[in-house]
């Protein structure tokens, strides 16, 4: 049977959502799904990984995975791949996932599909759909050669669902030593910039601001509206690069992919590199002074107007209705 492996990324000891999405997809592809969990607290996550489809969980509890970037994980995974030769390894497109995949690709000389979606395995041949050119073109690709095919998948490409027939997975301790050589990119400090309310990637309402907000201080209008709606605030790259908000707000090709029920674009023109990160929203509302702004080409409701007026008015209106 086709062997499919999933790299179960841990963040703060918890499995990243994208890894659960990948496990869900993996069990649709094959009955032979293995998850690899590395780092402090890995064993405690095995049950969760089993629920989402892992039959087998390979764990290695070692703080080195958090203390050093990419190399310890890449070394361990490469060793396992050389031993067991799985057909496919799925990794989420996260900062760490990308770093690990790039090293594995070079080390195993295996090729990699980045941003793979619609994965299928027909007669052992892997097929994926990859959005090219800021997702204006969908390309069908396959990989040839190499022991294991590597596929990076963006968060939210698949829906995470608990397996109905889930059983406790077989847990195996990985027998490896992390070399001195792999301990070079030292993580000295981890700074978490806490934000209130739901996380951008998980919120059902997202209100994103762009250059049309005119200045950093006006983001407060969006935060107020988000608080009223129980939503999260995002941003275009233009304002992230301008330093108005941290990078963690950025939606788009080089930022986050969001799929909320409602996405409100406030003062955002709608460049394709932005829309690629939000066009999966169920409904899009856009507020922009320019009637020709590209964002109006696919907004479900477009308002030609000034964000600095419409957003506070909307906030008051909703509060009034709720009262």
């Amino acid at each position, binding site marked *: 049977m086709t062997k499919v492996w999933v790299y179960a990324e841990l963040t703060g000891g918890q499995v990243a959502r994208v890894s659960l999405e990948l496990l869900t997809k993996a069990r649709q592809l094959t009955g032979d799904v293995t998850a690899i969990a590395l780092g402090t607290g890995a064993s405690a996550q095995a049950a969760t990984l089993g629920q989402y489809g892992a039959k087998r969980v390979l764990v290695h509890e070692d703080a080195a995975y958090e203390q050093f970037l*990419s190399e310890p994980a890449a070394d361990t995974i490469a060793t396992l791949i050389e031993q067991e030769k799985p057909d496919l390894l799925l990794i989420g497109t996260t*900062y760490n996932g*990308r770093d690990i995949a790039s090293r594995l690709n*070079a080390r195993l000389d295996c090729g990699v599909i980045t941003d793979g979606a619609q994965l299928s395995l027909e007669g052992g041949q892997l097929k994926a759909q990859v959005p090219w*050119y800021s997702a204006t073109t*969908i390309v069908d690709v396959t990989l040839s050669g190499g022991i294991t095919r590597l596929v990076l998948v963006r968060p939210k490409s698949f829906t995470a669902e608990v397996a109905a027939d889930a059983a406790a997975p077989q847990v195996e301790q990985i027998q490896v030593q992390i070399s001195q050589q792999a301990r070079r990119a030292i993580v000295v400090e981890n700074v978490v910039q806490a934000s209130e309310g739901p996380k951008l990637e998980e919120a059902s309402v997202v209100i994103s601001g762009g250059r049309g907000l005119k200045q950093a201080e006006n983001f407060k209008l969006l935060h107020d509206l988000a608080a009223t709606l129980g939503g999260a605030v995002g941003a275009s790259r233009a304002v992230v690069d301008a330093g108005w908000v941290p990078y963690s707000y950025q939606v788009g090709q080089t930022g986050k992919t969001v799929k909320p029920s409602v996405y409100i674009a406030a003062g955002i023109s709608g460049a394709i590199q932005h829309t690629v990160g939000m066009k999966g929203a169920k409904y899009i509302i856009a507020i922009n002074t320019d009637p020709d702004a590209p964002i109006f*080409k696919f907004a479900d*409701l477009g308002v030609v*107007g000034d964000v600095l007026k419409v957003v506070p008015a909307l906030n008051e209106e909703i509060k009034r209705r709720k009262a």
Partner: protein
Amino acid sequence: MNIVVCVKQVPEPTGTNRIDPKSLRIMREGVDSVLDPADEFSIEAALQIQEANPGTNVIVVSMGPERALEAIRRGLAMGASKGVLISDPNLAGSDALATAKVLAGAIKRENPDLVITATESSDAYTGMVPGGIAHHLGLPLLSYAKKLTVSGGKASIERQTETGFQRVEAQLPAVVTVTGSINTPRYPALKGIMQAKKKPVDQLTAADLGFSPEQVGEKGAKEKVLGWAPAEQRKAGRVIKDDGTAAAQVADFLAQLKVI
């Protein structure tokens, strides 16, 4: 100190990219090509280190067609010291795997203390090349830097994460990938543009670096394109002009969607 910056020429990123139905590659004819805007941040980062450390060489390296020389010249005009262009018909169609191997080969000749790349290119955005380069050079990778300092034989970065950032450091030599929030790239001055024409550019082929045609380019690529289709587009909905009632109309829409 020697700093190598990897730069790429790409089709104008704000233009519409098209696929060539025959080669299934990106259409480069009749499209403006520019130095990847993402690479300007890398060059600027290198130049800032150079200014703080006199005697530093900044070498811009690119693999691409002959005309990628323009991208190298732009880097030289910004202030880099020297260029290296790896250009060879056998390299056309290279995937990230081959690109990283070839670049690493060329970079090694420059004896770098630091290699700077963007986190991802604007046309391919695989983000796989920098880690590949680090692997082939046997160097640590400091990725997603929004801040970079080099001192005492060490590179220290602030690395973007999903929830904030990390402080990460490594002994040189190292590979660093930088994001768009690291600096504001300078515009080349007229003087710089004039000087750039006289700066040295080494030209290399795949064979010069010891690669056979089978190892690189189209032939060596692991990823094969089977077909393509234009992506589905969302349709435009209702557009209203704010006459003072827009807020109420948006609230009505949100109520209809049961958001409020």
